[in-house]
């Protein structure tokens, strides 16, 4: 059954939310725009994470040993192989197929072990420094190199998590895995979950290791260290290449920057996969919605849709994970709706799954004064095998009596359930989001139960 923006657990019909699990739930057809930040392992209170960081840095520095022992070709091959780890599915790729680094970039990285005296003698302490020294290396590369060094651990972690959550494992033959003892890639047969769409193995990553930007990174260095400490001519700012050259020639500056970042490690935290908007912001958005006119004059409909989608994604979290906002056309009318994964975290969500086959919930947005029969029909036509037979119309006012009866008749005739969520309901949801006396999702449950009670038994 095709669903919108499918995740691994959706395919296997496993009801858990992102907030309940320790790992990042991978999408099946696109990457997740987060990266493994090795600094989070370095600063972690867990000895396991610290040890993994040490092993990772040692392994990377071994490339320097190879370079200085005249085995540059071997080091080059290892580094190129390390530069892409598509099994973890992190990054911005829409196709889940990243590319390895070029030989030229790899040579640039390896040359650091010869040209910078501090690295020749002591090696790196943080892999992320490469971003400050070599062009074409950014957070995605750092993340992939880190994951490849830790692949053996990540496979064990993936197996453990899959066994806990009931995700099926399949044999992935001859997977190249970096071996810490021999400092080389060894092919191993491993059991991993598979992407059902591509057949590719999937490796899970703990949520506590991920960030949007690495703590030590080029942009942060440029803004917070280079400009204030080195200074730039604002009329003629230096190019990125010039700054990288400067850093290679003045590695002491990079070390000072890294020391600062180490000292401020308390501020370095993993990024949450979803950040609910704060209460103040929720109240502002509600105020905007309540003051909007109905209809599409002055783009009121677009503003309504934007504000409602941001509000609902927050109000329904963590019980419903937001999948995506989408647009479709029905009878020449542009319709916008929100799709949530039905994680069955509440009893009524379980009922909706069982009774209406809804693995995802659709919320159709209608900035109209009064919902008409055609609006119900548009949603009714959309509900079906893919999305299940449950839908919510988010609109300004309650359904008129005849339209409500229309929804009851739809239930009687086709066992489809369409409920409304009005301004008043959203106001109550925001109120309980602020007061924390009840859960906003309970308002949705109330409306669902009211509808079911109105249906003939």
């Amino acid at each position: 059954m095709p669903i919108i923006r499918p995740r691994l657990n959706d395919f296997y019909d496993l009801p858990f939310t992102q907030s309940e699990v320790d790992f990042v739930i991978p999408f099946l057809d696109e990457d997740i725009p987060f990266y493994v930040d090795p600094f989070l392992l370095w600063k972690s209170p867990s000895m396991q994470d610290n040890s993994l960081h040490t092993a990772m840095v040692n392994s990377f520095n071994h490339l320097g040993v190879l370079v200085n022992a005249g085995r540059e070709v071997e080091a080059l091959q290892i580094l190129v192989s390390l530069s892409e780890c598509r099994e973890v599915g992190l990054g911005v790729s829409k196709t889940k197929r990243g590319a390895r680094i070029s030989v030229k970039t790899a040579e640039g990285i390896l040359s650091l072990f010869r040209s910078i005296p501090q690295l020749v003698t002591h090696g790196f302490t943080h892999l992320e420094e490469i971003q400050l020294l070599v062009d074409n290396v950014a957070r995605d590369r750092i993340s992939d190199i880190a994951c490849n060094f830790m692949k053996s651990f990540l496979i064990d972690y993936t197996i453990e998590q899959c066994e806990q959550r009931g995700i099926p494992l399949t044999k992935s033959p001859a997977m190249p895995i970096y071996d810490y003892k021999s400092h080389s890639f060894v092919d191993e047969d491993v059991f991993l979950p598979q992407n059902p769409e591509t057949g590719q193995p999937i490796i899970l990553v703990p949520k506590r290791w991920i960030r949007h930007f690495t703590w030590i990174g080029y942009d942060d260095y440029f803004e917070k260290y280079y400009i204030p400490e080195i200074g730039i001519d604002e009329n003629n700012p230096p190019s990125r290449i010039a700054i990288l050259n400067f850093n290679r020639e003045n590695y002491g500056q990079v070390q000072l920057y890294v020391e600062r970042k180490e000292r401020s490690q308390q501020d370095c935290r993993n990024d949450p996969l979803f950040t609910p908007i704060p209460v103040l912001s929720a109240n502002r958005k509600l105020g905007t919605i309540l003051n909007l006119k109905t209809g599409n004059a002055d783009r009121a409909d677009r503003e309504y849709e934007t504000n409602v989608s941001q509000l609902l994604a927050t109000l329904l979290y963590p019980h419903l994970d937001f999948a995506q906002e989408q647009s479709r056309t029905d009878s020449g009318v542009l319709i916008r709706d929100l799709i949530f994964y039905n994680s069955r975290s509440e009893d009524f969500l379980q009922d909706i799954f069982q009774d209406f086959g809804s693995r995802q919930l659709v919320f159709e947005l209608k900035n109209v004064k009064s919902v008409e029969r055609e609006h119900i029909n548009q949603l009714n036509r959309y509900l079906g095998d893919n999305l299940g037979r449950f839908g919510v119309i988010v609109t300004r006012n309650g359904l008129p009596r005849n339209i409500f009866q229309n929804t009851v008749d739809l239930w009687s005739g086709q066992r489809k359930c369409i409920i409304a969520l009005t301004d008043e309901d959203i106001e109550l949801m925001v109120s309980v989001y602020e007061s924390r006396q009840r859960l906003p999702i309970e308002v949705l449950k109330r409306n669902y139960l009211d509808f079911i009670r109105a249906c003939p038994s």
Partner: protein
Amino acid sequence: MNTKQEFRKVQEQIEALHSEIDKLAKKDPNGAINKFKLAFINEVLTKANAILTEEYLPFAQFRTFDVESVPSNSDVLLVLSQYMSSFQRKSVDDTPPLMEGLLGDM
């Protein structure tokens, strides 16, 4: 506990709840009341229903709050006010007339 003591106890509980919810309702009349408070309110209302009997119940259809209906502070306050009135009315009705007592003493 005899009937009179039970009557007084439940009446006092309703008055105390009314006083508490009144504060919440003044702050946020449309705010939802939490499940914890609602469970206690329903417990007291169940006892009150048994004491008042059909004759004095303030509403024909209402007995306790449906937790799933997310009642607001003002909803709860309205109901508690009505129950307070009913308790006062029953209390007055159950008190023997003053003259009757005096005649009995003679």
